């Protein structure tokens, strides 16, 4: 209610510039909006300066200048942002305080008030639902002391179910506040519990169960603390190099962890029974009368040939060690193989879906939020070293400069001839790359063939056996450099694309080499080698060892030697940088080798574990001693998804190769658990056949499930589901776009209407009542005027009593507002 005195008081300060409504406002030239000198300073609108904020009619004397709506955000409603000023045009004008008060009474503001009052436990608001309203997601504005209200909120809760554990942790308050809230709520709950009759049995049971579960989770977390392998090392790397290089080491650690259960499975079910069988049982192994010479560690033949390292050593009998129990080695071998492949599949699928969801689905709009993510996620909080921080600053500065200059440059419109030219260049480089890969494949095939048929015999020590792995590793080392050299001619606009193209080509090369080898082994070895699987196992073992040696050597030369040379001879060179992409791809290749080889050589996973362990330490010390952090940022999360998908691809390829071997290849006659079978898979078929007598139902089920009709139907259903999800996603994307536009339009609508109100005010011809029934502007009587909006609608101003009605009425509806008359 406007008393006369009050009216005069504010008359003198009639125009309130924008900055009082929007304390953060600055107009386009960067000057704070010029405010009358007697405005309250910025920050005076903090809520804890004022005792209450409800809209109460009888208190209007309190509504001084400073009592204008605080521009904070109470609830989750986005449309209530600020005082709804739309755009810079509006903001530059001055708004009378009446308009400001009217703004306060907008329905969207009322919604905000409602949300904030609920969050702060104001009992004047009737709760809509009896379910306890979760506080998660409600933003607690800066500088607010809301603990009192929160306590009130929880205490008033009729449910008295107490604080949810995660809700307590997620409260963004000081710890002392949180503790106080929790204690008070628990206290209240205790008193309530005493007053109420005893909880029903079921509720008590559920309650106890949840407490037990919580304790269980805590103890699991405590145990998990011990398994933080290499934590100190990872922290040091992160401190110096940031999260990009760290992602390589995390990937290595993850692969390490995957190989451990694989090894445990094979050891427990395959290797251990074989060892026990040999030493304790009645069987006898083949004679190992070859002595152990040192270089067998490299070739895996000789002394190693007839040991548990290879498939050929395993017996095909049914072991009988203890009493009546039988252990059929064939089933054990085959099903363990299937078991660990399934395990790896689950782990991979789970990881990749989690990563994809995090980085692509939730971040799908992030392609648009380019600058925001550069600014707000630009700094890596894990960096601890001073010079790394300096480099990071420089990197960020360069990045900004680069992208801003890119924005300024005009997008060159490429005409047809340039585009044609680039198209043909790219086609020819791709053909060149494919030709190089083909050449490499043929070379490997030739070398293997020559070695097998022994048409060329080299007498240097072990070169005979090692020639093939050396060729493969050499090819894998040299060709990627050639690829990146070739890619320079293609001149991709974004360096990101060039990186991805290079990585794809490298992986294609590695897959091709492996594919050629597998083809060679499966096709050509039938007649020449006695025990084919052992031979393949040896080859893979050699590949793994040579790969390991090459990784050590490249680390040595590329990082250590280069740093020495830079410091002592070639001062103009740059320090070496850790190449995340190349190294991660090497890890993926090693893992693929391991997966391919474990069927033929069960102990290969142990070798892989040892290899990864050593590589970790070598790389860690090398990177900290020799490398400098890179200036270019590395988008770790997107890259992680891509690396995981490469890993999955290689996994599927190796799975295909092994499945082919099991199902179609004839096992060697003289060795291994599957000798004298037509195929290894025959074991399973025989097993199912043997069940025909005992469990016919089971056999029927199995034959139904594995029939082609069922499989096709399942595939069809899955495809339909995938298609449906995709359609839904596309629909959502469109919806988001529409809603964004709508939001923008609403803001503009509001500013337009307020503009109109403004002009009407200026004319001074209307008294407008606020919802509380107060007259907002004193002035002369209203006259009936009709204005026409640009859209053609006519607005009629209605008439009221002028100015100084002393008693506020308790009307809640908007009196005397503009009514729109349709034309």
């Amino acid at each position, binding site marked *: 209610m406007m008393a006369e005195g009050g009216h005069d008081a504010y008359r003198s300060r009639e125009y309130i510039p924008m900055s009082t409504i929007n304390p953060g406002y600055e107009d386009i030239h960067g000057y704070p909006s010029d405010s009358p000198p007697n405005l309250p300073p910025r920050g005076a609108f903090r809520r804890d300066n004022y005792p209450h904020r409800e809209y109460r009619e009888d208190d209007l004397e309190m509504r001084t200048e400073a009592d204008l709506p605080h521009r904070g955000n109470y609830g989750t409603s986005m449309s209530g942002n*600020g005082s709804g000023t739309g755009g810079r045009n509006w903001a530059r004008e001055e708004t009378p305080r009446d308009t400001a008060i009217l703004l306060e009474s907008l329905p969207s503001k009322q919604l905000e008030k409602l949300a904030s009052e609920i969050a702060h436990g104001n009992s004047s608001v009737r709760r809509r639902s009896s379910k306890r309203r979760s506080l998660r997601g409600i933003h607690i504005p800066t500088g607010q002391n809301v603990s009192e209200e929160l306590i009130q909120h929880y205490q008033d809760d009729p449910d008295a179910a107490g604080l949810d554990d995660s809700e307590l942790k997620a409260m963004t308050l000081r710890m002392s506040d949180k503790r106080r809230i929790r204690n008070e709520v628990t206290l209240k709950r205790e008193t309530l519990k005493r007053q109420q009759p005893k909880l029903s049995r079921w509720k008590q049971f559920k309650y106890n169960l949840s407490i037990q579960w919580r304790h269980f989770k805590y103890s699991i977390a405590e145990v998990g603390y011990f398994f933080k392998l290499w934590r100190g090392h990872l922290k040091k790397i992160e401190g110096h190099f940031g999260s990009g290089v760290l992602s390589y080491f995390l990937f290595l650690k993850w692969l390490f962890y995957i190989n451990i259960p694989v090894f445990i499975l094979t050891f427990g079910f395959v290797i251990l029974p074989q060892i026990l069988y040999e030493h304790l049982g009645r069987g006898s192994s083949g004679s190992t009368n070859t002595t152990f010479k040192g270089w067998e560690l490299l070739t895996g033949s000789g002394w190693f040939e007839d040991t548990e390292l290879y498939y050929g050593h395993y017996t095909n009998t049914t072991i009988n060690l203890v009493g009546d129990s039988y252990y059929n080695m064939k089933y054990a071998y085959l099903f363990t193989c299937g078991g660990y492949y399934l395990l790896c599949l689950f782990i991979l699928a789970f990881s990749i879906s989690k990563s994809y969801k995090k980085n692509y689905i939730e971040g799908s709009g992030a392609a648009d939020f380019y600058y925001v993510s550069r600014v707000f996620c630009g700094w890596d909080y894990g960096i601890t070293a001073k010079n790394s921080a300096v480099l990071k600053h420089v990197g960020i500065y360069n990045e900004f400069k680069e992208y801003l200059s890119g924005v300024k440059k005009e997008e060159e419109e490429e005409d047809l001839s340039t585009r044609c030219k680039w198209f043909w260049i790219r086609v020819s480089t791709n053909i060149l790359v494919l030709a190089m890969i083909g050449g490499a494949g043929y070379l490997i095939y030739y070398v293997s063939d020559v070695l097998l048929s022994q048409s060329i015999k080299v007498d240097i020590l072990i070169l005979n056996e090692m020639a093939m792995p050396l060729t493969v590793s050499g090819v894998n080392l040299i060709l990627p450099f050639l690829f990146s050299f070739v890619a320079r001619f293609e001149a991709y606009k974004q360096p990101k694309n060039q990186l991805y193209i290079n990585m794809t080509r490298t992986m294609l090369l590695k897959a091709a080499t492996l594919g050629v080898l597998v083809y060679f082994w499966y096709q050509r070895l039938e007649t020449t080698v006695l025990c084919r699987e052992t031979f393949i196992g040896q080859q893979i073992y050699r590949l793994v060892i040579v790969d390991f040696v090459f990784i050590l050597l490249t680390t040595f030369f590329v990082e250590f030697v280069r740093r020495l040379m830079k410091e002592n001879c070639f001062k103009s060179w740059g320090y070496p940088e850790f190449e995340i992409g190349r190294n991660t791809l090497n890890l993926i290749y090693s893992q693929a080798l391991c997966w391919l080889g474990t069927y033929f050589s069960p102990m290969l996973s142990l070798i892989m574990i040892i290899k990864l362990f050593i590589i970790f330490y070598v790389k860690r010390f090398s990177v900290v001693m020799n490398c400098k952090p890179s200036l270019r940022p590395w988008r770790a999360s997107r890259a992680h998804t891509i690396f995981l998908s490469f890993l999955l691809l290689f996994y599927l390829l190796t799975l295909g190769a092994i499945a082919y071997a099991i199902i179609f290849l004839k096992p060697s006659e003289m060795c291994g658990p599957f000798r004298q079978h037509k195929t290894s898979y025959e074991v399973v078929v025989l097993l199912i056949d043997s069940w025909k007598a005992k469990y016919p139902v089971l056999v029927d089920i199995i034959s139904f499930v594995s029939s082609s009709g069922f499989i096709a139907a399942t595939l069809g259903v899955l495809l339909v589901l995938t298609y449906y999800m995709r359609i839904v996603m596309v629909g959502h994307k469109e919806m988001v776009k529409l809603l964004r536009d709508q939001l923008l339009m609403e803001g503009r609508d509001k500013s337009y209407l307020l503009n109109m109100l403004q002009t009407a005010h200026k004319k001074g011809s209307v008294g407008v009542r606020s919802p509380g029934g107060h007259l907002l502007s004193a002035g002369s009587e209203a006259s009936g005027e009709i204005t026409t909006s640009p859209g053609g609608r006519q607005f009629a101003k209605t008439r009221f009593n002028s100015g100084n009605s002393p008693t506020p009425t308790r009307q809640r509806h908007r009196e005397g507002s503009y009514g729109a008359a349709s034309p």
Partner: protein
Amino acid sequence: MGGSQSVFTEQELTDYQELTYFTKKEILHVFKRFQQLNPDAVTKDKNAKLGKDEILELPELKVNPFRDRICQVFSSSKDGNMTFEDFLDMMSVFSDNAPKNVKVEYAFRIYDFDEDDMISSKDLKEVVDKLTGEQQLPEEDMQQLIDNIFEEADLDDDDSLSFAEFEHVISKAPDFVNSFRIRL
């Protein structure tokens, strides 16, 4: 860690475990780091309040361009000085286990330099200046950058980012959780 076991009672540790995202062992580890900042004061009184310059000796904070804001936001007395509980709070928010929405909330507070619950262009200018370190972007580029940011994130066109707009944008950025993390 064995030595600091006796500093806290079991009840206190359970308390902290419930109120933060840490396990008991991690809490003790955090206490050890806190103690290293000023061993005399903390050994005498575990709830000692350490001054801002002592807190900033922590290696993770020392090189962070937003260290002043971080201390300001997490300090319970709002003057930059922190007790162990404030420190624990801070480490809990920056830890791996803290969910994204908690991190987003605190990130908003950290980047809101003038504490008016909106990230205005002045706030953004400060953020970018702190990010680029010694070299500062020229005025024109800065304005262009701020305009681009508002174009991307400011939905209702009012020249500043409210919390809802900030959250909407940041929770989509996949690198946010990776970068807004301090491991202890």
